[in-house]
């Protein structure tokens, strides 16, 4: 695990290429409420969990259980009322904390709605430029990020974002976050409304980022993709942690998913019905085929 000392020597705004070592995350008793006219509505209640550097966590739970709020609090867009978010072991009182927060990338649900520049290149360059990077470095980061998401700059950099397809826009928005070299990537329902082909591409991108060591926190309703991509899960129910840790398909764990409006992943259910150990179910069709042939 890389602690705060690991980056202590770096200038706060030192850019990192996508794939630099991942950041560890820990939430300790994080609570947050939305202010409403009549009474505050609690969205997170004493949320505690840990995610190791380079780990991958599926954030699941019914609609309205607090998933999006948690991502925004981790990114620092909302300050917790109580409790703390630790990044690489550092808390809000540490001088490096603001710099660490900038290494957390948050991709909103339907991020394509936030594209605004007149070329794909300028849209992706917006974040790095705001960080005050030299233009040569911005260009390199933009080109790399466009390549990573499968929008080669030679073909796409000068296109108008609105002239791209929905799937291309979604990937462009992801490139805008990746250009800043996040060490912890937070994704809020990234697969919603994507066609299956674009979903496969995005899964491939996330697998490569994961292999490069980036820490992934993926909020999703899609249990099959969560199972394919994430080593652990965190289930929220009404703003509280209902379960945190490795996937558990013992009888108790099974009930837990269903009780939170979720279900078992397809391959887990298949393994159960084939009389095999669901805990050792394959993550992908290719793995399943290998086990069955």
């Amino acid at each position, binding site marked *: 695990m890389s602690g705060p000392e690991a980056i202590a020597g770096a200038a706060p705004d030192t850019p990192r290429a996508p794939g630099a070592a991942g950041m560890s995350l820990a939430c300790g008793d994080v609570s947050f409420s939305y202010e409403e006219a009549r009474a505050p509505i609690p969205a997170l209640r004493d949320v505690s969990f840990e995610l190791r550097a380079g780990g991958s966590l599926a954030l699941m*739970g*019914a*609609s*309205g259980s607090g998933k999006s709020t948690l991502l925004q609090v981790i990114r620092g867009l909302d300050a917790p009322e109580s409790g703390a978010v630790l990044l690489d072991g550092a808390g809000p009182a540490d001088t490096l904390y603001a710099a660490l927060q900038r290494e957390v990338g948050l991709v909103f649900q339907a991020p394509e709605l936030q594209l605004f520049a007149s070329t794909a290149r300028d849209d992706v360059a917006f974040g790095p430029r705001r960080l005050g990077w030299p233009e040569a470095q911005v260009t390199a980061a933009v080109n790399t990020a466009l390549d990573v998401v499968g929008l080669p700059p030679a073909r796409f950099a000068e296109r108008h974002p609105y002239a791209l*397809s*929905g*799937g291309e826009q979604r990937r462009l928005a992801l490139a805008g976050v990746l250009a800043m070299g996040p060490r912890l990537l937070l994704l809020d*329902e990234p697969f*919603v*409304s*994507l*066609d*299956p*082909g*674009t*979903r*496969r591409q995005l899964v491939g991108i996330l697998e490569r980022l994961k292999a490069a060591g980036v820490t992934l926190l993926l909020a999703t*309703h899609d*249990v*099959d993709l969560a199972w394919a991509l994430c080593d652990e899960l965190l289930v929220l129910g009404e703003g509280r942690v209902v379960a945190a840790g490795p996937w558990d398909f013992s009888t108790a764990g099974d009930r837990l998913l269903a009780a939170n*409006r*979720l*279900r078992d992943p*397809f*391959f887990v*259910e*298949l393994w159960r*019905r*084939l009389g095999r150990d669901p805990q050792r179910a394959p993550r992908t*069709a*290719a793995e*399943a*085929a*290998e086990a*069955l*042939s």
Partner: protein
Amino acid sequence: MSSSPDETALLLDISGLHYRYAGAQADALADLDLTVREGEFVAVVGANGSGKSTLARLLGGLEKPAAARRALACGHDLLGEDGRMAVRRDVGVLFQNPENQLVAQCVEDDVAFGLENLAWPAADIGRRVDEMLAHFGLEELRRREPHLLSGGQKQRTALAGVIAIPRRILVLDEPTAMLDPAGRDEVLIAVRELRGEGLAIVYITQEMDETVGADRVVALERGTEAYAGDAGGLFADTALVRRLGLGLPAAGELALALAEQGRDLPGLPLTMDELLDALGAAT
């Protein structure tokens, strides 16, 4: 399944339909044909940008076609302003995001909203709303504020509001995309019941397993029909499926992966049960 096609009314009769967005270089819909009969369930699939949502808006009378040889919905001509106004009574459209479709302070007011706009007598509205709340299992939530509902409850409330006005065609544009698995099941069950009551249903989806059991699947590619037939026929043509940016239901993907490993299953299973049968038969 629908009864013999010739005995039921042709509710959607569309041929050579074109639509282009202002300033766009190409048609969003190009020479599209679509016929749907009473009681038929037609699933519409296609890559992002293939024209699915545009089609939903046109069928609901919310946009004017650029051109068409024939564009009849419940006998109303979508090419004319009067026809488009009339069609909004017969064709209900439900969109993906329930947040954008709930307007009132509580569930029962939301379900009543469309009827009030049509100036139904209050007593009739009350009866119809009670019917809808019972139908969609929302009776206990009738006074609940929409923002306190789960995603599935919100989408069922929106669906109840759309259906409260007696409809002949229901167009659903990815109605389960934003829902958790339980909410998705709730909406699918509600839609299946409506199909049983004789509505024609046009069901747009990116979830391939939701197309299994449809009377017909129509796949769009750049605004035109690339496939029309049963789900099995579409998924059996894997080259076409890939070209269209689609996929197979999980059971089918596994069958393909097994075939790559040299183990061919009998037929192409599309559901868990079919897969288990095929695996059993193959051992």
